[in-house]
């Protein structure tokens, strides 16, 4: 579904992604884990067209998207839940959700979608006219996920959904990601620092180390592989 070939991305002179090839198949949860500064967020931003790549290709359902502007990529059905939630702080919860459906034309369907999201996250319904900036971190994460669901994307890109969130809420959000995949058949690319959590959630995993993929395989296998811990803790 999503196919990345030999992708390189630079920030000024700094090559952050140094030739990555990976694939996400339909219906899968694929996770990309790795320590700080490995280039995970950059990869997701490049897929969504916020950051431009310097070489290599990204294909989504057969369309090359690495030269497309981000709003066209959204139209194709890629929903990105960015690192740090990035809700619109001065807008209400409802307005935030409406922004999620910005590219959709069918207003009736949108209403249904809204009800669906409030079913998934009853807490958002209670806060419907509250400014998003006043929500707690966990609630903002739910809002960010809800905002992405509004688009009904074919692929969700989750960027560090557990970052800066209370442990209890992390579990809730993890459940939500699982449900999206199992009940609604969503394809998910999950970027996480929390390797143990990500490996439990996903089917397959790639481990990124300073811009390169150093390990890949089924998540269950990697969960018991002590090489993962060694990469994280800097053993030679």
């Amino acid at each position, binding site marked *: 579904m999503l196919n990345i070939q030999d992708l390189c991305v630079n*920030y000024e*002179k*700094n*090559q*952050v992604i140094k030739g990555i090839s990976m694939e996400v198949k339909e219906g899968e949860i694929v996770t990309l884990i790795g*320590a*700080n*500064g490995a280039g995970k967020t950059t990869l997701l931003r490049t897929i969504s067209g916020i950051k431009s790549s310097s070489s290599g290709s990204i294909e989504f359902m057969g369309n090359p998207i690495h030269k497309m502007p981000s709003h066209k990529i959204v139209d194709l059905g890629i929903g990105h839940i960015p690192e740090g939630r990035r809700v619109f702080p001065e807008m209400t919860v409802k307005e935030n959700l409406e922004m999620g459906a910005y590219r959709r034309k069918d207003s009736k369907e949108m209403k249904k979608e809204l009800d669906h999201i409030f079913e998934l996250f009853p807490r958002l319904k209670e806060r419907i006219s509250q400014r998003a900036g006043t929500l707690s971190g966990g609630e903002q994460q739910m809002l960010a996920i809800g905002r992405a669901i509004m688009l009904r994307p074919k692929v969700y890109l989750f960027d*560090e959904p*557990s*970052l*800066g969130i209370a*442990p*209890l809420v*992390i*579990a*809730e959000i*993890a*459940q939500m990601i*699982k449900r999206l995949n199992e009940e609604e058949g969503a394809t998910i690319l999950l970027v*996480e*620092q*929390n*390797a*143990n*959590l*990500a*490996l*439990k*959630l996903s089917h397959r995993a790639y481990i990124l180390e*300073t811009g390169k993929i150093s390990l890949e395989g089924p998540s269950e296998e990697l969960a018991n592989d002590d090489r*993962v*811990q060694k990469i*994280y*803790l*800097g*053993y*030679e």
Partner: protein
Amino acid sequence: MLEVKNVCRNFKGLQALSDVSFTVEEGTIFGVIGPNGAGKSTLFNCITNYFPPSSGNVYFEGKEITGIKPHKITELGITRTFQHTQVFPQLTVYDNVVTGQYVIKQKDPGRTKTQFDEDVERILKLVGLDSYRETIASNLSMGDQTRLAIGIALATEAKLLLLDEPAAGMNPEETKQLMNLLRNVREQGVTIVLIEHDMKAVMGICERIVVLEYGQKIAEGTPEEIRQNPQVIKAYLGSGDIA
């Protein structure tokens, strides 16, 4: 040499640093690590007073330095580098190092021009850039720019260097060279505090390491102790509880 005592820092109600304390001994290489957003750069900013700590104190050689202006802190002997923009891009390598000597006029007004020139030569040799002296800094590779930044810091004759992610964007070979350089710098009697993401590098070079998570110190010890520490492992790999 450097003592950080109960330092806290808030941003709009968010606690970026809470009650962090540690001591750096003279002549050591000291690491500060932690996951993203743990407050490492904030810690450097508080030490060098880019912004002051909300509470707590910082002492250098027994003297309190909390709240002193950045350029005065350099005069006392602490110099820091930054994560990304670390040199003066349009100046030559040579002039970059000379710029670092500006503070010496305050420290030691009697120094002669020959002494200044000799110092530049010595530093250029030490950081391995003596054959690039006329190169414009922005034309250097990332790795060379970082070495130049360390050269500038050395030119201020700092007793304590605070380096913020010097190995960012380097390939493994460059990182290795950088670590060798840091060892040489330490041989010159300079104490180093290092923020670094590259765990291999940190573990290989530091005598002691402090680990921050969510603005709190969760561990301190030798690299081996840190690797064994369950809290550190949890901070890095996560708990993985799906309720």
